[in-house]
């Protein structure tokens, strides 16, 4: 998965085959594709890229060309959202926000890792991404805290309302890798 994942060589694309949704989303996110000068400051700043096959500049180039292959590429999910590239981009492009919108489009089209889907399931069930367990309940009691925090946990009706409205994920895309 990380480090040693080799990719197919880049294919030649005709510039006219743009996925229009990508360009529109990038501009809205503060990343004007025409302004990226491919300097590579983002890649050089990227800790994740030092350990994985993700190359931020390459993602931004493909996205700027409206190349939809960027959406199914699991590399866009290796960004830790550390914002180092965002703060350092000499053209002031909102690189991290651009990656987030690419992930949004990818999600809409069903490219979501199974493990990420699980996080959403937990949120839908409990209102939290990390739920409580018996061990923690006992520690909370020892520390003089209420066993269950007064958050959404204690209000199942609130959790249900949120689950019905938020983060309804589309079904898995047929090309999505099984990450289990």
């Amino acid at each position, binding site marked *: 998965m990380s480090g040693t994942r080799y990719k197919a060589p880049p294919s030649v694309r005709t510039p006219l085959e743009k996925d229009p949704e990508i360009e529109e989303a990038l501009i809205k996110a503060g990343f004007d594709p025409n302004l990226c000068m491919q300097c590579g400051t983002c890649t050089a700043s990227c800790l994740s890229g030092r350990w994985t096959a993700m190359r931020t500049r390459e993602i931004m180039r493909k996205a700027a060309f409206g190349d939809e292959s960027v959406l199914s590429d699991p590399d866009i999910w290796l960004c830790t959202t550390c914002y180092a590239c965002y*703060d350092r981009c000499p053209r002031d492009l909102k690189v991290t926000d651009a990656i987030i919108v690419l992930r949004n489009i990818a999600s809409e089209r069903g490219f979501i890792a199974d493990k990420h889907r699980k996080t959403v399931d937990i949120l839908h069930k409990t209102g939290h991404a990390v739920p409580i367990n018996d061990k923690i309940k006992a520690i909370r009691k020892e520390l003089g805290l209420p066993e269950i925090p007064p958050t959404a946990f204690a209000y199942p009706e609130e959790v249900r309302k949120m689950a019905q*409205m938020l983060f309804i994920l589309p079904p898995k895309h047929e090309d999505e890798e099984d990450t289990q």
Partner: protein
Amino acid sequence: MSTEYSFFLGCIMPNRYPAIESTTRFVLDKLGIEVKEMEKAGCCPAPGVFRSFNKPDWMVAAARNIAIAESNGADILTVCNGCFGTLFEVNHALKHDDELKKKVNARLKDLGYHVEASGEVKHIAQVLGFDIGPTEIRDYIKREVALTGVIHYGCHFLRPFTLKQIDDPEDPTILEDYFIDGLGIELLDYRRKHACCGAGGGVRAAHIEASMDMLYEKMAAVKQVPAQALLDICPFCHLQFDGGQQTLNKQRGTDFDIPIIHISQITAFAMGMDDIGMKYQATAPDFKLEGRPL
């Protein structure tokens, strides 16, 4: 400085590191800051995973939390970089975009809430390190901490700089000033001090190998200096460091054993609390802090 805050608990602190919650409450009490509970608050939601799936939904869920704080009439206080990242960004966006606020409110209505974005979102490191500051905190502490440590800022406290404008993310001093001048701690620099812990962005959730690679680089750099503990300001970084050292030791045969201490825990110790909950942590549960008279 505000004398009352809506305390946003989030997920990892109350449900994995409750000692960070109890020490935070202790510190706020000693500072005379009143805590308003945020009844029914949920996940912030996490800026890595949930924002990545659907940013508009993420905004609505965050706005719901902000609305709960507003009904308390007190600004939000968080002790987590992730919660801070989400709540700060959404609050800021709502403050500066009336159209967006209208859209978000239209959806919030179905959940029974309304948001104004009239308040502020603060991080405990900002309240301790800046609002109170290294000089004034000495009026509240009972002892200095006799410790040689290293620090980890984490990403979403200072970045993106254009939004947060708290301190220079490339060379910040807010935590150094607080820990050294305020609490008497000796700090060491290390090579990857300003690097990410590797947990964020949903990477820890779905790409644990890559996440552990990044953590390994960080911990190997920490090991090169004689630090007794690593100080952080975020329960998610805390989980990555505390649990991740054990994962690395098991899977890669390393022998990392650095105790991880949150800013609330160490401040509570300086204010006189002896048991700051180290025994509940996965790494170095026997670690004991030493005090030094003021």
